[in-house]
């Protein structure tokens, strides 16, 4: 990374948001409107098309015309809870609204939008009314807020270093310290700071402080030089320094010492939302690969050697979406128990999507190196995706949530927790309004393993009715394999040493947490498949679930039964058909522009 000198002061967007229309429109309609406004990505004259977005990326600029369009559309209101005047009613809706943006440019999705949400989450979760209202007004007015993380274990550039807050003279705080790499630091007027407020390590070492949008009464927030990241080149990362910055007592979000706990509660949102939106970028690359594979083919069907790859990646996308949407819906339906699933989604899926990109590289061949508008999005996503997932430091945060829970889950939850309500697996069905304040990190139930055990039992009961070697029979066998895996996990996790209240952990738990997260992915697929019964859609058929589960089982190292030959054909048929019709390659199959 190179640091360039850049002392630009923050500049407020000149585009006032237009919020007179669309406020009451459902998410699907808002998403469709944004998709239409962003237009055909392959049209070279479209100012929001691939050509323009890739040029901006090449120049390390944020795409100005598209940012202006998003500001016009009042996208900032999507991050503000509806009781505070925004449009955020549930997180599944939010992911749907954001997908048109992420289908085109991950860096723009982060740089324009979700960074503000990730920062604001702590305030929506634990802030008092004046804080919530002030931040809502700021975001609704087109302002930005960014997050100043504390330093976590094995920190990378984005998570390294932290800010300390000492008690100030008036019951407030004085902040000192710096971060090397903060997205939007140059243009955010407000900051959510996870500041160290106690010297000793432990659960109460940090507190959350909300600074801005007004400048501090004394001291200085210095915006340091831009840091050039190899991925998300258009997003602006820079250093940030707090020099004797005064914050009044009203800056404290929640209680003093609540920062670590607040991070555990509010990070669930980003943990589900990131996979739930970045999959849209992989959706674009899969469509690109399908286009490449059918190019110059007389029957418009890919050569046989690409069938498995194209169908397999599509099945992975549906698995990723099943897990992400289940997590996003769980935060509305069962907010006290969603944290395990959220950590598992973020742990499993960004990595799986990266593998998918590498598989698609084989189909794209030489086109994968092309920087032009038709294929340049591939290399851009290959660069952007690791930055979005935050790499090892990002997965370690999820492991720190999962690992301590494993012994208790094994002893008290697995094979015992009752099944969650069916609405969890009905994408797009109405949800109770999402309330950030109910998010927790201590629930003892495990919803999805209950779904796995239940679904496997139902499949086993019906098994006599399934022909041997049929997709349904294969699905039943795969479901049983995951139940068997959960049994092994139960025995091994129950035997782990569990230090109560301490910070030690059994190194072997890390591999077990990995296996557990994959079991949850399988459970989400089965739940989603059952939830589609009677819809008459492709998702009601077992083929996609069989293919998705077989790939998850192989990642677990399990012995996978031979798949019926119709499975790959059926999933491939759907991906080709959706590409022909211009529909998204996720659970929703939404119409796309171009």
């Amino acid at each position, binding site marked *: 990374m190179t640091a360039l000198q850049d002392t630009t002061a923050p500049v407020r967007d000149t585009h006032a948001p237009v919020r007179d229309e669309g406020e009451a429109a459902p998410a699907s309609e808002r998403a469709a409107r944004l998709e239409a406004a962003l237009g055909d990505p392959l049209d070279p004259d479209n100012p929001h098309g691939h050509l323009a977005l890739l040029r901006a990326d090449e120049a390390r600029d944020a795409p100005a015309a598209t940012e202006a369009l998003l500001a016009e559309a009042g996208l900032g209101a999507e991050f503000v809870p509806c009781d505070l005047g925004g449009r955020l009613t549930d997180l599944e809706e939010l992911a749907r609204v954001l997908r048109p943006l992420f289908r085109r440019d991950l860096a723009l999705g982060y740089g324009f939008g979700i960074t503000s949400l990730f920062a604001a989450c702590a305030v929506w979760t634990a802030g008092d009314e004046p804080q919530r209202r002030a931040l809502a007004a700021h975001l609704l007015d087109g302002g930005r807020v960014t997050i100043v993380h504390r330093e976590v274990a094995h920190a990378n550039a984005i998570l390294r270093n932290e800010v300390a807050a000492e008690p100030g003279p008036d019951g407030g705080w004085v902040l000192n310290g710096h971060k090397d790499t903060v997205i939007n630091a140059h243009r955010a007027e407000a900051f959510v700071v996870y500041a160290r407020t106690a010297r000793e390590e432990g*659960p109460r070492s940090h507190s959350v402080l909300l600074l801005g949008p007004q400048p501090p009464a004394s001291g200085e927030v210095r915006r340091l030089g831009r840091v050039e990241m190899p991925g998300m080149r258009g997003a602006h990362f820079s250093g940030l320094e707090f020099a004797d910055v005064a914050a009044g007592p009203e800056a404290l979000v929640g209680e003093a010492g609540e920062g670590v706990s607040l991070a555990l509660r509010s990070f669930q949102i980003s943990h589900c939302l990131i996979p739930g939106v970045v999959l849209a970028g992989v959706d674009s690359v899969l469509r690109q690969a399908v286009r490449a594979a059918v190019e110059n083919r007389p029957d418009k069907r890919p050569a046989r050697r690409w069938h498995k790859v194209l169908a397999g990646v599509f099945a992975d996308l549906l698995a990723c979406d099943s897990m992400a949407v289940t997590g996003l819906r769980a935060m509305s339906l069962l907010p006290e128990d969603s944290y395990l699933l959220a950590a598992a989604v973020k742990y499993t899926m960004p990595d799986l999507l990266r593998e998918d990109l590498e598989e698609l590289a084989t189909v794209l061949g*030489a086109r994968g190196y092309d920087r032009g508008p038709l294929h340049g999005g591939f290399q851009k996503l290959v660069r952007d995706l690791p930055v979005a997932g935050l790499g090892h430091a990002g997965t370690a*945060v999820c492991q720190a949530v999962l690992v*301590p829970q494993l012994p208790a889950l094994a002893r008290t939850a697995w094979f015992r927790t009752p099944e969650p309500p069916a609405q969890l697996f009905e994408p797009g069905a109405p949800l109770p309004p999402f309330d950030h304040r109910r998010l927790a990190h201590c629930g003892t139930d495990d919803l999805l393993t209950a779904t796995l055990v239940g679904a496997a039992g139902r499949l086993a009961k019906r098994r006599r009715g399934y022909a041997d070697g049929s997709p349904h029979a294969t699905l039943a066998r795969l479901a049983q394999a995951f139940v068997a895996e959960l049994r092994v996990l139960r025995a091994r996790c129950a035997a782990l040493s569990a230090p109560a209240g301490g910070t030690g952990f059994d190194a072997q738990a890390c591999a077990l947490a990995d296996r557990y997260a994959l079991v949850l992915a399988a459970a989400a697929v089965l739940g989603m498949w059952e939830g589609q019964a009677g819809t008459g859609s492709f998702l009601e058929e077992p083929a996609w679930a069989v293919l998705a589960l077989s790939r998850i089982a192989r990642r677990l190292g399990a012995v996978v039964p031979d798949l019926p030959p119709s499975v790959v054909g059926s999933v491939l048929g759907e991906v080709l058909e959706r590409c022909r019709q211009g529909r998204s390659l996720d659970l929703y199959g939404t119409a796309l522009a171009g």
Partner: protein
Amino acid sequence: MDQVRCAAPLRVPRPHGPWQGVKENLTGLGNAVVHTTWSEWLPSVLTTPRLRELLGPDWDRYRRTPDATVRYRFAAARLLIKYTAAAALGIPPEYLDLAYRLGGRPYLRGFDQIELSLSHTGDLMAVGLSRTGRIGVDVEPAGRNVRLELLEAQILTPAEVAEIAGLPKAQRVPYALKLWTLKEAYSKALGQGLRLGFKEFGFKESGPTGARLHAADGSAATRGEWGFATHPVMGRYLLSTACHDAGLSTADDTSVGTMLDRGFLSAMNQSAG
């Protein structure tokens, strides 16, 4: 960003090391490559009482392999991976669960601070480790007898063929062999093996050991996020490395003991307890 530098391979003749150089390379360069012969590691396979624990899920495959040479070589290679990774992670090798991605690339389940790659040919085994991103290693006998026309037809790009044509005759096959190992290393880093079409991308020498990745038409294909190197090993092998840096400026510390954040752990343990 700076060009990724690939570490020179280090010889580690037995499971108890020396591992210091591996740790230094991993800290300093972000990657490390170890090589040895399987016959040097064979005594450990034959004498360790913990072979079953050390092989983990690979134990069944080991037991099912009828040919003794293949079986011992398989076990020696797994031991090499596990001891090398254990040195970097600071935990006993039998704690490691060596798993395989769909394309066959090995990885350490639950420990993504380290990515790895394995290659063997003849009696040579090599393992690459990286903390910055994907890594691939490939070894071939330096004197391998190959038909240039065959490589040109099956794995080299027109730009590479043209470059080889310009070389003195004696250098052509060695250079083509080097390109081949680079292509193998790169495709192993991507986890795709032979599924990646080798004529769809090419390499060009850069400096005494380095190389750069090019698109099939000869244009530059990366922006410095990849590093490539080829080293002679034991006077009779070529060892090529492909190393990716995802650019997150990852922590130097790769040990397991420090990887879970103590603040989060204490808060979770408090709520669990």
